[in-house]
């Protein structure tokens, strides 16, 4: 970004030199720091509970459908790429490409939420709920015949639904914000090569949410 652009995204009054990021961008970075601490609390609790669990932890793939979620992870990573493309487009002043890539990001993000909702419904149907396994369900039978370790499934359900649920909530908030920006700013062409702070700031949030998912997918689904 050239200095002329940067100045356009600064408030129009003289101030002592800060961090050379305009207010909304700095505010988003600061907000993301608090988000890091929020997810640290959830992930830290998961790590402690898993290592201190009373019995064997359910192995990857026994409860969760890993391939479906791997596809979902791919979708989210694609949305991060398209977000970068949207940002690069408007930095070049290309309104048309901004509209296209921003829409791709929204669609990928919304699809992620859709697939996650499908995953949840499917898991609940199989008997996997936040408190563990539902009596008389498919998973309860697996526990009964010994193919699935049952002692720690309560903790498995607690941590799985809390972590992925709050991540899903963040994605949903991001998608809603992007739809709002798309309708009020992107489509009317309010972002210009001199002023595209909104795209950059929502992009920061979006990449953060994506990064959290990569960590969650690894520690919840893969190991």
């Amino acid at each position, binding site marked *: 970004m050239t200095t002329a652009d940067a100045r356009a995204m600064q408030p129009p009054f003289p101030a002592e030199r800060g961090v050379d990021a305009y207010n909304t961008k700095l505010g988003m970075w600061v907000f993301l720091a608090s988000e890091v601490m929020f997810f640290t609390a959830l992930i830290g609790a998961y790590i402690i509970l898993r290592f201190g669990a009373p019995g064997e932890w359910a192995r990857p793939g026994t409860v969760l459908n890993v391939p479906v979620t791997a596809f979902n992870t791919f979708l989210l990573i694609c949305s991060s790429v398209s977000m970068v493309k949207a940002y690069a487009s408007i930095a070049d002043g290309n309104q048309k490409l901004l509209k296209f890539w921003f829409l791709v990001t929204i669609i990928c993000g919304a699809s992620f939420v859709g697939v996650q909702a499908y995953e949840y419904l499917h898991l609940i149907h199989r008997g996997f709920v*936040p408190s563990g396994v539902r009596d008389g369900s498919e998973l309860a039978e697996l526990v009964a015949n010994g193919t699935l370790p049952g002692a720690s499934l309560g903790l498995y359900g607690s941590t799985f639904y809390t972590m992925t649920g709050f991540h899903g909530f963040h994605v949903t908030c991001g998608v809603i914000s992007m739809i709002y920006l798309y309708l009020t700013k992107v489509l009317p062409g309010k972002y210009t090569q001199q002023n595209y702070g909104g795209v950059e700031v929502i992009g920061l949030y979006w990449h953060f949410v994506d990064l959290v998912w990569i960590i969650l997918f690894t520690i919840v689904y893969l190991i």
Partner: protein
Amino acid sequence: MTTVAGTPGVGHTHHDDRPFIRKYIFSTDHKIIGIQFLFVSLFFLLVGGLLAMQIRWQLGFPNQPMPGGKLLPETMAPDGVILPEYYIQLVTMHGTFMVFFAIMPLLVGVYANFLIPLKLGAHDMAFPRINMASFWAALLAGLVMLSSLFVPEGAARAGWTMYAPLSARPDLSGAGLGQQLWCVAIILLGLSSILGSLNYITTVINMRAPGMTWFRMPLSIWALFITAILGLLALPVLSGAAIMLLFDQTIGTHFFDPAAGGQALLWQHLFWFFGHPEVYILILPAMGMVSDMIANGSRKPIFGYHSMVFAIIGIAFLGWIVWGHHMFVSGMNPTLGSTFMVTTMIIAVPSAIKTFNWLGTMWRGNLRFHVPMMHAVGFVAMFVIGGLSGIFMAATPVDMHIHDTYFIVAHIHYVLFGGSLFALFGAITFWYPKMFGRLMHEGWGKVHFWLTMLFYNLTFFPMHILGMAGHMRRIYDPTMYDFLKPYQPLNHFISISAFLLFAVQAIFALNFIISLFRGAKASMNPWQDNGLEWTLPNPAPHGNWAEVPRVYRGPYEYSHPDTTEDFLPQSQKLPGDPEPAAASAAGH
């Protein structure tokens, strides 16, 4: 006065035709939001005080009908006698209201909002609408918490620290909805604090007036800035923990229930990982504002400005690695306990630096004992007592004995009441003219200070003795224990002192309210202070300055040799002062 750069925004007031509701209710003006926080948190301070009076009645006069107790429903106090189930709600809600809805918003909500833009020379916060959302979230949280006292099973019952599994299992606590409302209110409050903090941080970093370099910022702003960082990083951990607790209570998760594999200690770790930075959130802004008031009252530059700044940063950093000292008796590895003991004791170093610097500032100063100064000096004295008792309990072997006794209760009240609240009484008196354009009454202010100081010490000092004798915290009826029977007269004495302490706060309340309408009109700079806020008329107009002020020096230039007056405002240009470089960097 010679040239004062930065003219007040009188131009703004002329066409400030915002309707009443936008101006005073749903206002995005940082000053109005600060004043809103002030009224709301003073109300919650009163609520917390009323709860404390009931606790003291039960401890001083166990099982006797409380005066006015017949107004309470049967489920709380049949025939005016407080029930054990109600007593535990009282201690829980007293702590919760005082920590989360009185002291924290009074320090941060009121003064971060009011002072940061005014002292830095900004027109408002970086995000005025987020600021407004922060206030309304805090108010909503407070109302949710208040409403939990009135639900059928009563309010939360696990103490303000909400230890699991008692808090996690409704079948153990006997209060399903009350516990849930506690969690919901805390999550909302966390949201409010995070929104506030990101605003304060952004504003301090990016919106300082030209010439207001980092080391020209008043110590109050330094303290509020560091506090905002603590709040930003600590509150989300509490929110996360409260969400897990809420899920345990409602959707059947097992985070904190050992019967199903969860870990009760996990709650303690999460809570105190938040909780220890939180205690510095509750004291650092008070320290900062006390520094401003003591320099003003001593008519001398603050002693060791840079060391004060680094002490604030040091306290804040160390605050993150000491949380285990709240958990010495939880069965932690003694080696780990020793580590926490050492880190905790190191905090005494920056705290002592601050104390000595306050004393060094007053040393041979031209002392003016106005009401804010008296409260500031009272703060230093009481904080030293609270700080020293803190070193007692930081020592693991001593803590084994005094853990969860009235010694701890005495300690927290010495730092929170003797510390934070004294500083707040001073700060309210000090910035009252800039908020409301009138002065609070000086004579009644002094009467209030001395009576408060007297009854405060009579109330809380004997608690040390009770604690050393083993008087447990949160017990319902001390006369049930033979070993505590000899100490019942002391409990009696504490209760009467506490009632008197509460009663003399009426002087402050009346002084505050009557001065709003009848107080003497304040001049622009009644305390002859150097801060930028005193270059504005009373009350400061919307938008603060029409033209951004210029800053030429640090905030504590009192008794400067080049001036005839004994103060030198930050924005007053002396011959030879260079213009700040940033002044011409961006166009107006």
